[in-house]
């Protein structure tokens, strides 16, 4: 499928945490098909920026508009995957995904096959390994149709095979006209992306 | 003109500098009024023909009880200011008022209990006003405890604000339900709308003390707010300058 054209316009965004200026007067526009990696050392404010764009943190100064609309009205267009597991340990893989995505069983099972969790749909999340748990959270990328992806450290705990699969999925999302923002300390090899360096505010 | 007087309160520095002066005025004024009112009430006001000298406790108990309730309302006003105008000073005020409010509530409970011993023959009765005072003390304790449990001061302030607003909506319901549950107490001794049943020689010192305690509360709150402002603004330039000059 192809997404409607979409853009995120960030203007003069500043953020201060614990009396430390993380970023100041950050302005940029993201258009359909763009992939942006937010880079920088630990504590540079990568997660804060991602969470602010996802609407999880209140904007301190500046504005973020999606298709000319304020952020609060477009949260349904966003898929956010953060550090936390996003799944409940006591439920099965399928039940977790069903709640989060609302997709039907067939669709979800296909997505699980794509992330290499074929046959695991009835397992409880607590029975999975760390990497498998991460795959379960990422499986949402294969079964929802939201144009804006905000992924915080999606590559952690993934093996080489899965990294490639994820790269391919992000690339196809971009080809369909979606936007993807992510952070990582291991720059993906097989993906073309722009980079935003944080941590140079003086 | 217009809203300047209000927006000034957004500047911690402006507040810190002015509050020092206001505090001085309030402190001396409160001291004078309280000495005057208390001595008047203790020595010059006539003896109550029913309760004897024990009634003289009201010159402390009634003003403190008024304050204890008024401070919760003041805290709610601060919470509204915090949420509507995002004014950090309102949060500082909320933090100060909670502590003062608890202190005054405790004082009014204890003075009420002591007054109760000669009047009803027992320190504690489950009467409506004592009970709602006790619940007020628990509400203040909750606000203080919640703030102490959350590390980030901004977040703690907002959480307390939510709690205070929910509390202030409930407070009248609590008061009415407790009153319905039990009404033993004598009717309120001073109401603004009616002419008090007390003779003037009794209620004038009470009025002096009420005003005195209110001003004393302002003095105490300003003092504690100044200390908190200094602590929270410790990294700002004006605080550094102020401290290095001293």
């Amino acid at each position, binding site marked *: 499928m192809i997404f409607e054209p979409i853009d995120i316009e960030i203007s003069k965004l500043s953020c201060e945490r614990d009396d430390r200026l993380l970023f100041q007067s950050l302005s940029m526009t993201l258009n359909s098909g763009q992939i942006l990696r937010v880079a920088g050392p630990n504590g540079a404010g990568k997660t804060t920026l991602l969470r602010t764009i996802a609407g999880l943190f209140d904007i301190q100064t500046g504005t973020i508009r999606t298709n000319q609309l304020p952020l609060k009205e477009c949260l349904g267009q966003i898929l956010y995957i953060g550090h936390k597991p996003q799944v409940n340990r006591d439920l099965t893989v399928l039940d977790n995904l069903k709640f989060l995505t609302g997709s039907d069983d067939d669709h979800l099972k296909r997505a699980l096959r794509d992330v290499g969790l074929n046959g695991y749909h009835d397992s409880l999340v607590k029975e999975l390994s760390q990497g498998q748990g991460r795959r379960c959270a990422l499986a949402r990328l294969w079964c929802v149709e939201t144009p804006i992806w905000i992924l915080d450290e999606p590559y952690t705990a993934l093996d080489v095979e899965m990294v490639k699969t994820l790269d391919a999925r992000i690339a196809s999302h971009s080809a369909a006209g979606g936007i993807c923002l992510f952070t990582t300390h291991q720059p993906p090899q097989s993906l073309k992306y722009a980079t935003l360096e944080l941590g140079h505010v003086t | 003109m217009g809203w300047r007087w209000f927006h000034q309160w957004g500047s911690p520095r402006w507040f810190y500098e002015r509050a020092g002066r206001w505090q001085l005025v309030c402190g001396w004024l409160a001291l004078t009024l309280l000495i005057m009112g208390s001595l008047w009430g203790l020595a010059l006001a006539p003896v109550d023909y029913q309760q004897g000298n024990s009634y003289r406790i009201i010159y*402390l108990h009634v003003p403190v009880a008024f304050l204890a309730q008024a401070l919760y309302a003041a805290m709610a006003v601060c919470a509204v200011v915090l949420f509507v105008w995002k004014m950090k000073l309102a949060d500082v005020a909320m933090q100060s008022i909670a502590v003062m409010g608890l202190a005054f509530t405790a004082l009014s409970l204890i003075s009420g209990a002591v007054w109760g011993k*000669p009047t009803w023959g027992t320190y504690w009765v489950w009467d409506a006003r004592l009970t709602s005072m006790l619940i007020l003390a628990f509400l203040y304790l909750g606000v203080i405890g919640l703030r102490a449990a959350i590390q980030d001061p901004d977040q703690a302030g907002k959480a307390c604000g939510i709690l205070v607003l929910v509390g202030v909506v409930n407070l009248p319901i609590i008061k009415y339900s407790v009153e319905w549950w039990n009404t033993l107490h004598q009717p309120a001794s001073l109401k603004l709308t009616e002419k008090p049943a007390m003779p003037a020689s009794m209620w004038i010192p009470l009025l002096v003390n009420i005003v005195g305690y209110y001003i004393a509360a302002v003095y105490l709150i300003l003092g504690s707010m100044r200390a908190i402002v200094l602590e929270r603004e410790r990294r700002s330039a004006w605080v550094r300058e102020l401290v290095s000059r001293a």
Partner: protein
Amino acid sequence: MLEFQFASLAAFCEMAPHGVYVWPTYGLGLLVLGGLTLANVRQHRRAIRMIQRNLERE
């Protein structure tokens, strides 16, 4: 209207028969007001000392 209600200063201090209730209450009131004032002064002083220490460290 404003006259001393007690026969002597001793009678005032005794405040028969309720002196044991009245005086401790006022004493406690004084203690609370004084204690809060003192606590404020100490908190203020502690804040200044902390900021001074931070400045020296830099």
